[in-house]
């Protein structure tokens, strides 16, 4: 159940939404697409789900072309669009039953797959979907996408606007679903969720910046350091940006991530920093994360 994109491009009113995107997701992979609003994530997923026709390029899902083979593709995929797309005036049960019926199956047939997700919303099964909290709606939408045992799950920003706890639980569910051999494509604007994927594609303004596995960020070509201090990282931001050899410095929570232009400059910078009288200052090299890489590619 693989997904292969080749040079996919799409424009709206002369504005380019996607520009020559190519990548492939393997069977059983948890593949993440990260990028801010307007990056083109939704457009990309709609093309893969055969709901939009690309202007250029091809996309094949399990061998079928999204343009010509949409009928077959729509039988195999489970799609969760942004805003959850549930029937607000139907109950939890009724929503699930509807989608099961539409795919020619019953709730019971694939219940084992959905059980774990569904058990979290089961106490509310007679409640109208419109009256559920964000986290519950998210789980219901996931159940509806799973109920017919699709071979490919396409989830468009399922965690946006949902609280941190629900987000964490959702990703744990995804991990277990992946173990059933279902390929999962997920998009999210939250960089910290990227580490939970097998591989991640970074998209910005319609351009594919990079594809990488979270652990193997060998592509970060510059020395990266972290600066921490009880005085607050912000206090040192301008100072360090003005240093010769500092390529960039950005706030990262309670620390600064400082990218140095080249290995030659490292010694010089370290010496400078050590001269700043601050006993609480912690300055050390760190491995690059997805967000560092994203920022680097954006510049």
């Amino acid at each position, binding site marked *: 159940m693989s997904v292969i994109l080749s040079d996919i491009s799409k424009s709206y009113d002369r504005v380019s939404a996607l520009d020559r995107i190519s990548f492939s997701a393997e069977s059983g992979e948890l593949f993440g697409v990260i*990028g*801010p*609003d*307007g*990056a083109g994530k939704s457009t990309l997923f709609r093309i893969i789900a055969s709901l939009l026709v690309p202007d250029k390029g091809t996309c094949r899902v399990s061998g079928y072309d999204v343009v010509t083979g949409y009928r077959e593709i729509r039988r195999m995929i489970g799609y969760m669009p942004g805003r959850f797309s549930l029937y607000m005036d139907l109950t939890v049960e009724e929503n699930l039953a509807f989608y099961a019926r539409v795919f020619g199956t019953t709730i019971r047939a694939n219940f084992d797959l959905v059980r774990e997700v569904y058990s979290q919303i089961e106490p509310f099964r007679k409640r109208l979907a419109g009256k559920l*909290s*964000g986290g519950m709606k998210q789980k219901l939408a996931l159940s509806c996408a799973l109920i017919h045992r699709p071979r490919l799950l396409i989830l468009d920003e399922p965690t*946006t*606007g*949902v*609280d*941190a*706890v*629900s987000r*964490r639980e959702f990703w744990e569910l995804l991990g277990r679903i992946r173990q059933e051999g279902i390929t999962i494509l997920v998009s999210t*604007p*939250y*960089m*910290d969720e990227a580490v939970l994927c097998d591989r991640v594609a970074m998209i*910005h*303004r319609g351009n594919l910046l990079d594809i990488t596995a979270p652990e193997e960020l060998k592509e970060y070509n510059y020395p990266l350091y972290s600066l921490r201090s009880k005085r607050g990282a*912000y206090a040192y*931001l301008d100072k360090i940006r003005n240093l010769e050899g500092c390529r960039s410095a*950005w*706030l*990262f*929570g*309670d620390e600064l991530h400082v990218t140095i232009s080249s290995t030659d400059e490292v010694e010089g910078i370290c010496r400078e920093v050590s001269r700043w009288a601050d006993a609480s200052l912690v300055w050390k090299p760190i491995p690059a994360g997805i*967000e560092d890489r*994203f*920022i680097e590619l*954006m*510049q």
Partner: protein
Amino acid sequence: MNRPPEHIIEVRDLVKRFGSFVANDHLTFSVFRGEIFGFLGANGAGKTTALRILCGLSYPTSGEIMVAGHNVYRERESIKRKIGYMSQKFSLYEDLTVSENIRLYAGIYGLGRKYIREREKQLLEQLNLSEIRDRLIRSIPLGWKQKLAFSIAIFHRPVIVFLDEPTGGVDPITRRQFWEMIHQATKEGITVFVTTHYMDEAEYCSRVSIMAAGRIEALETPAALKEKFEVSNMNEVFLKLARREKEQHR
């Protein structure tokens, strides 16, 4: 001798009820001048309700609330003149230009025309938007929009500015630039009251309050919270707190 920090916001036993549903249950807290106060909590915890009360957009059911030295029940108009507001959902008019938006909001706060013209020029240069001052908002990228919206919110140099999830959906660089702007604003004496879903942004705050089910469950500096819960980042603090909540309600 150290003067006690000046209270820009003082809230005592704030209660807001909608029928039988209690959205805010006896909230008590203060916000000091010049700090970045993070107001966190899950959706439905009552953050937005409290925020709206502080901005003068709705009436509390009971409680003593003072914002920028004014009483929230009797002096709402005075409060509105001294505060700024910006939210993720709406900040600027899409079918007006950059310049028109600046002048509209500045005009609403009663700034003089010459003053507006000078400050507008300054602002556009600072944000690198001088070339697009006559472009419609709907055609400029989200990141620029949000930064512009923030600048407009503090254009009239308010005592305190309220930011409701201001960085939702923007790219990582813009997000950081935004927070650099926030830091700069506090340097100039503006107090910042911000809600956010990004836990790393919680680290930028001087103090953080976490709400759950209408109550404030924690209110301390990020460092103190991390120590208390024995974790290394605010995300973990939040999760641990939420898990504790769940267990207590079983």
